[in-house]
């Protein structure tokens, strides 16, 4: 059985049929793209993910990155270097980035689809490129021309990698507590301090590592308003671009973790010998603003990790369930033959739940990516603001909901495999361990929930939420008397109303009982995620339905006659795909969306027992 599989058909469906990214190809920036090219890119990325990345995923898990205390060097598992060289040589690293600096200039939405494949292939590997482009994009936005000239192309082409150095022992979720110091010395600063949890802070994949470091200048205000952002290379770069002296950045250890073992999580000390030079990115004390740019991009990518690993785990457990023979068909009599476990109702439910999570959150992430593209290419300021608003509103959902649910999907995959799922011989338990970090890093999901209710809901007087509700209603409402999906549309409508009621409730009680929204922030994020993902799955079903009807009509079969259509689906995988797009939407509406009114009632009930408990 193949270790890693992705339903590329579903990726193409969400990208081309649902988000309809073809709209972008009219724009001069993307005029070289067309449908065939998009498909060729996805097919090639899948090939790379499957043949090159996936085989090293279990090796990375088993061997992990290793640290030598004597030299401070980190060695990656053997196959990583070769894959990194191929990955960068083939242009995948700077996929969505600026072609003027060595990037490939592709749309974000397509970049998300490509990363869906790469994360599924090997998450720990893919984090290196992700951090590199994140750091490089900071330099592109906030660096001066000289810094851009020296660093950007080398980073977008992967010759040098990058990191994000935020966290310190006393500054995690509270970034304002950063203590690292920066002292101005002419056109540069001397950096001093210790950072922890720095992914790819040290490794042997590239010849230099460029750190984006948060630190305080002398006399800077306390808290987040006194934080500045610096570019700090591991090895200094001469004016002609060649590598110069060591820059006094040292790795003093790496963490032993639950998952992503091949992603080295480093402790770095800067300026132990007082020789660590850094260059300011942007203005002094404006570091947080800069960091938010990087963080918003990264949060969407982390959400994608949730969707991607959920799908990878689902595909594996699905193949397993189709092959593993155990027990009898529950409705068949004694003496009937043993069946594969995908015939058992409980297993089928688990498979469909995984499918709903995986494909639903994938649709959410790709749509968010498409909004990001539209915000970039749009020339109408009002439209631009509308798309930017949608991206901002959806970012905490995309990150928090996708990783919470994605984790559940990987856990269900283990359950489908039973005892074998618990063994490291099978890949699903690694997916679960690797996935867990996604609800923690780049702002815990609790922080995402606070961001959602505190910043995103009230932003622009709630206009973004209104836009989103309007968009959902517009796509689903016309189908209120759909021949097959009317009942599911009705469930969605109630769920949507519950979401509106929940949001309105926060606005009302917030002043009198400030704790109430905070205590219910996570519940609200879950409610909103359920509604948005439920909408996207329903929208997919509404797109799939007329196509399914066409196939049935061509064979003179009534599309509503489920017995008759079964034969068509068994013969034609395309018909089966469309059929199951409808089934997963119905499953999700009836089992997940249907819970939304209760979820809304809970957050309006004002329970504060957690605050009252002595603990």
């Amino acid at each position, binding site marked *: 059985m193949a270790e890693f599989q992705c339903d590329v058909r579903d990726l193409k469906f969400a990208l081309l049929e649902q988000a309809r990214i073809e709209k972008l190809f009219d724009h001069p920036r993307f005029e070289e793209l067309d449908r065939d090219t998009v498909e*060729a890119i996805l097919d090639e990325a899948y090939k790379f993910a499957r*043949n090159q990345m996936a085989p090293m995923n279990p090796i990375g898990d088993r061997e992990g990155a290793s640290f030598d205390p004597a030299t401070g060097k980190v060695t990656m598992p053997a196959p990583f270097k070769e894959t990194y060289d191929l990955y960068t040589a083939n242009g995948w690293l700077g996929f969505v980035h600026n072609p003027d600096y060595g990037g490939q200039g592709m749309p974000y939405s397509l970049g998300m689809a490509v990363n869906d494949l790469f994360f599924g292939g090997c998450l720990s590997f893919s984090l290196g490129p992700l951090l590199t482009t994140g750091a490089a994009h900071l330099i592109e936005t906030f660096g001066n021309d000289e810094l851009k000239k020296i660093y950007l192309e080398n980073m977008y082409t992967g010759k040098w990698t990058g990191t994000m150095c935020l966290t310190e022992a006393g500054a995690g979720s509270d970034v304002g507590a950063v203590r690292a110091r920066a002292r101005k010395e002419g056109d540069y600063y001397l950096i001093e301090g210790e950072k922890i949890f720095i992914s790819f802070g040290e490794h042997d994949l590239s010849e230099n590592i460029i750190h984006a470091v948060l630190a305080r200048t002398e006399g800077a205000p306390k808290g987040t308003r006194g934080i500045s952002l610096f570019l700090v290379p591991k090895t200094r770069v001469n004016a002609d671009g060649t590598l110069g002296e060591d820059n006094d950045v040292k790795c003093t250890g790496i963490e032993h973790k639950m998952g992503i073992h091949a992603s080295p999580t480093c402790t770095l000390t800067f300026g132990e010998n007082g020789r660590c030079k850094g260059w300011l990115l942007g203005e002094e004390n404006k570091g947080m603003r800069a960091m938010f740019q990087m963080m918003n991009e990264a949060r969407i990518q982390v959400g994608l990790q949730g969707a991607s690993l959920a799908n990878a785990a689902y595909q594996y457990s699905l193949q397993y369930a189709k092959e593993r023979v155990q027990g009898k068909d529950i409705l068949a009599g004694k003496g009937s033959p043993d069946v594969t476990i995908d015939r058992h109702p409980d297993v089928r439910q688990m498979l469909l739940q995984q499918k709903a999570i995986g494909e639903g959150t994938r649709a959410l992430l790709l749509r968010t990516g498409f909004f990001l593209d539209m915000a970039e290419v749009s020339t109408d300021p009002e439209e631009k603001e509308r798309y930017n608003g949608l991206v901002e509103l959806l970012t905490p959902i995309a990150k928090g909901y996708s990783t919470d649910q994605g984790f559940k999907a990987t856990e269900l995959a283990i359950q489908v495999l039973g005892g074998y799922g618990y063994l490291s011989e099978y890949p699903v338990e690694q997916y679960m361990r690797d996935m867990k970090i996604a609800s923690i890093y780049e702002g815990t999901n609790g922080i995402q929930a606070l961001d959602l209710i505190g910043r995103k809901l009230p932003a622009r007087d709630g206009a973004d939420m209104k836009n989103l509700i309007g968009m959902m209603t517009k796509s689903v409402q016309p189908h209120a008397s759909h021949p097959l999906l009317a009942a599911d549309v009705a469930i969605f409508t109630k769920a949507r109303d519950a979401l509106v009621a929940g949001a309105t409730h926060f606005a009302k009680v917030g002043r009198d009982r400030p704790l109430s929204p905070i205590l219910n922030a996570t519940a609200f994020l879950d409610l909103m995620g359920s509604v948005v993902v439920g909408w996207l799955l329903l929208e997919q079903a509404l797109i799939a339905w007329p196509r399914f009807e066409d196939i049935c009509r061509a064979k003179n079969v009534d599309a509503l006659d489920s017995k008759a259509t079964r034969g068509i689906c068994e013969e034609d995988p395309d018909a089966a795909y469309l059929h199951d797009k409808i089934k997963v939407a119905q499953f999700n509406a009836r089992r997940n969306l249907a819970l939304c009114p209760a979820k809304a009632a809970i957050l309006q009930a004002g329970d504060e027992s957690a605050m009252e408990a002595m603990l």
Partner: protein
Amino acid sequence: MKILVTVKRVEDPEAKIKVKPDGTGIVTEGINYKVNPFDEIAVEEGLRLRDAHGGEVVIVSCGSEASTTEVRSALAMGADRGILVKTDQTLDPDAVARILVKLVEQESPDLVIMGKQAVDDDQNQAGQRFAQYMGWGQATQASKRANLESEDEKARKPGLVISGETVEVTREVDGGLEDVRLKLPALVSADLRLNLPRYASLPGIMKAKKKPFQNLTPEELGVDITPKITAKRFLSPPMRQAGEMVPDVPTLIKKLAEEAKAI
């Protein structure tokens, strides 16, 4: 030097193939297609030879319009231009060989590289027939002595050795390898261990669309493609029967001898 490499559009080897109920062919709905894996190896070898000796790699495919995708994949790997001989008729290996003869008359390549066989119908004939028609030397099942983990392979060193007017080829034969030397022009067909084909790069995929691409038809080439072989009926292999537990070794031997007639 000019190298002509053929690629065939085949059903994804991992797809579950189903035979149509009336036995006239296989169900094609929802099947993914890709470049025949042996042809990818042929393309890779062509690219390595071009990079070592200069010249160009021309990709040829025969089949429906849809085969454009497979020609483009080879262009995305780095080949220079493509030719599609377009027909919706089923082609047998002899028709393909005769189409190639006409193309080679037009293109005059120094070397033709093909996959040793296509994984859809496993005929392994087109190359041999083509070489025979041309009166060329042929080296089928081309392999190499260096293994696929070697430094030579990592450096993408060609397995075929061209010097002057000849090409040296290591062939896979029963029980080992055989070295042959052919006079150019010649036909070589690629086996599994000749090389590891490269991945297409993103810039390669983007450039592939802009590379010269010629559409021809068998009629334009003056080739009669009326098949000499026709498939009468398609059948799925019989389902494997369940095994039988026997109480002891003597019973097993008895059954093997009398029922299975295996001993």
